[in-house]
């Protein structure tokens, strides 16, 4: 029996009919057409499906859609403030060569956002640790780690500018 639920995704409200066993990943991709959310393994091992739920990075393939009612969900599509501009993390990923095939990228970026929200100036090792749940087969992680570091720097400077 499908249930009608309301999901808040990237600041918009969506009413969807879902089966109780459907994952957040499936509903985001199939019902709401947010295909920037990837599915790499379906068992929470690779991190490609990472989204933010109430400000925390979670594996959307392990989360049930029905449990997401009343929560704020953010996908890669919601990272940048406008369609034209890139979020500093996205910009840094592009500029630093942190993207190759791009399939892990949305999950990596959201994991990075999660890290930088909690720790605005992470060390190289702290970034490595934070990204350890997101697998990448192309880059060897080096440029991703560097991109996250550079983005953190930029975000910090921007927030300092705002407060001063």
């Amino acid at each position: 029996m499908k249930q009608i639920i309301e999901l808040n995704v990237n600041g918009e409200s969506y009413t969807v009919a879902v089966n109780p066993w459907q994952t957040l990943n499936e509903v985001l991709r199939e019902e709401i057409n947010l295909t920037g959310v990837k599915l790499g393994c379906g068992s929470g091992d690779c991190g490609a499906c990472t989204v933010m739920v109430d400000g925390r990075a979670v594996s959307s393939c392990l989360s049930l859609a029905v449990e997401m009612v009343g929560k704020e969900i953010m996908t890669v599509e919601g990272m940048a403030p406008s369609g034209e501009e890139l979020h500093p993390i996205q910009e840094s990923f592009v500029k630093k060569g942190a993207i190759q095939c791009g399939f892990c990228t949305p999950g990596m970026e959201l994991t990075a956002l999660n890290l930088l929200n909690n720790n605005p100036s992470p060390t190289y090792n702290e970034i490595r640790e934070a990204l350890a749940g997101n697998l990448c087969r192309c880059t060897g992680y080096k440029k991703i780690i560097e991109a996250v570091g550079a983005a953190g720097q930029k975000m910090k400077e921007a927030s300092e500018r705002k407060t001063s």
Partner: protein
Amino acid sequence: MKKDFSIVGKSVPRNDGKAKATGTATYTDDIKLPGMLHGKILRSPFPHARILNIDTSRAASLPGVKCVITGEDTPKIKYGNWRLFPDTQDEYPLAIDKVRFIGDEVAAVAAVDADTAEEALELIKVDYEELPGIFDIDSAIKEGAPVLHDYCPGNISVNRKIHYGDIEKAFAESDYVREDVFNVHAVSPAYLEPCAAVAQCDLDGRITLWTSTQVPYIVQCLLASTMGMRENDVRVIKPFVGGGFGGKMELRTWEFCAAFIAKKTGRPVKFTMTREEEFLAGRRRHAMKLYSKVGFKKDGTLTGKDLRIYLDGGGYNAMGPTATFLCGTFGAMLYRYPNYRFWGQHVYTNKPPASAMRGFGAPQSLFATESQMNIAAEELGIDPIELRIKNAQVTGDEIPDVATISSCGFIEALQKAAEMSGWKEKRYSPKPGQGIGIGCYSFISGGVFNWFNTQFPFSAAEVRVFDDGTAHLLTMAADIGQGCDTVLKQILAEELGLKMEDIRITSADTSTTPQADLGAWGSRLTMMNGNAVLDAAKKIKAQLFGAVSARQNLNVIHELGCKDGMVFPKSRPDRGIPFGEAVAMAQKANRGEPLVERGYYTPRDKGLVTPAFSFGAQISEVEVDKDTGVVRVKKFWTAHDCGTVINQMAVEGQLEGSIQMGLGYALSEQFVMEDGKTLNTNFLDYKMPNAMDVPPSEVAHIETYEPEGPMGAKEAGEGLAIPTAPAIADAVHHATGYRCKDLPITPEKILAGKKD
């Protein structure tokens, strides 16, 4: 030879970076078409069995199921990439009569949603008669072993021999002869994007297939032949692809099933593999058994090599024939072997088919070469780097029947790697529990062989230029993440004197991009498509130069150039005409005909293997825990020669990525198998290195100029998957005394084999 480049050689960000960073890049599984059905595949639970009967009636009557097919419903046409040798084409899209590995595809279902299709699989009843299975090379080649394919009674499907010089005489005259047996294991390409395909059939019965592939043209041809259709009635489009590494370079069952069911039902069909399917039944790098014998003179001069390799092919040939061939080629690379004998045999076993994977035979073959060089160096009392330099191939060397090496920075790479790493001190004054080791590689820049038997050039490019000063590049080259769209744009921008943003690219659509291209494998694209792009650009320039020359009434002896958006006589750069205006002039001269040119490249008279070889050396430093045997790699130093670097950042990315893959191959990745069944079918149990596992690394590009390559470029990135395992194995030996000849290097093996 080196030119002053404006765009080539720079760290130009990827063409598709923004699309990928924002999640707007569309991969195959992201495609949704009206009325689309979802497909699932029923796989064999047995490693070897005869199919007695398949009853699909219950599945077909499940509400929501629109189509169920088995091999009996299909035209029963075998396929394989070696079209020139039809005997090697041993696979049907769906099993006919027999299954040969756990996961072999038996039937397919398409339903209104994936859950229904999955449920229907359970309702298909297959009666099997189990047959004895064979799971290793030795059992497969034994007299009286069960036979997988009737046409191949000894289970050896491919034989490849190379012989030059007199190997027996060479050994007889050697001062030192070394013989070893190496075993290397299978690993998964483990691309992050599981394979997927979406097919649509139009009212005239023509197929459009969107698929996660490295080889759109090969899929087009083989899909057409297995469907009994004409090639031109099949259109293959490669959307964004989430990595391939060799695992996506053949026609695959789901591509056929999507097309076949789309044609049958008139509705679009999508198949997407799960990660479990990828690990259970997906293509993998060949496990091999390698017998290698090398001879030396006292002073370290190599006298010859005798290499015997068995490839564990699994149930079907897949890309095994090419791997068998290439193992022999790579066995003769890096060093000067005046005498060389190779015999490679591809063996069927009841396991998932092995196929191409980054390095394509070289990681295995050169693991033996490099390990043996290190063993020999120790026993001859010569430094391993000195021994390599003494025997290293150099520019101009000929490898009989293979090629002439037209550029080679191997010795410089060895010297540079030694210098960067502090080799002498670390090797000869080691700290307890630490070690340093070396491994090297050479790789091809695309194959010159045409076993696919294409009637087209090996690569093609179409360049259209417009009077607004822009250009449109069309190519069938498949960007699967490695970045060829960006690299090809850079080459075109450089040649036409345009900016990156002036160029639009359309790639990998068999109905619109120019025929043909054999795909993204064997490190082909920079060399082959780069040359095709250059060829087209030069033809465009000839037209522009003619028009500008006429307009300016230039003496015919003047040469013209394109730079910074201008077309100008080189002797009078101030008399330049904007690119767009020059295009308009050329078009006027041709009475309005659009300015479009095609360029091609097919390597001819380039021997039997490749037009150009890359070279490099890698040194790794490790620390081994004496109680647990756990290896921690502290650092890598790599010096490599890829000719002209077209995109600095992309080459670094390739190198860093190859270290991740090489590290996994050496230490942590392996398939745990039991009677043909893969037990570790998820990323938790298949241990691919994560961000914490990959150590820091330093890299040096050795500058050479490859005369055959576009702007001096050649292979980068695939060959780099080779040196990591032998370098770590050597470092572990240096640290512990344990010499690994049996990958992967596990703590258990180290503890059992270490010398205190």
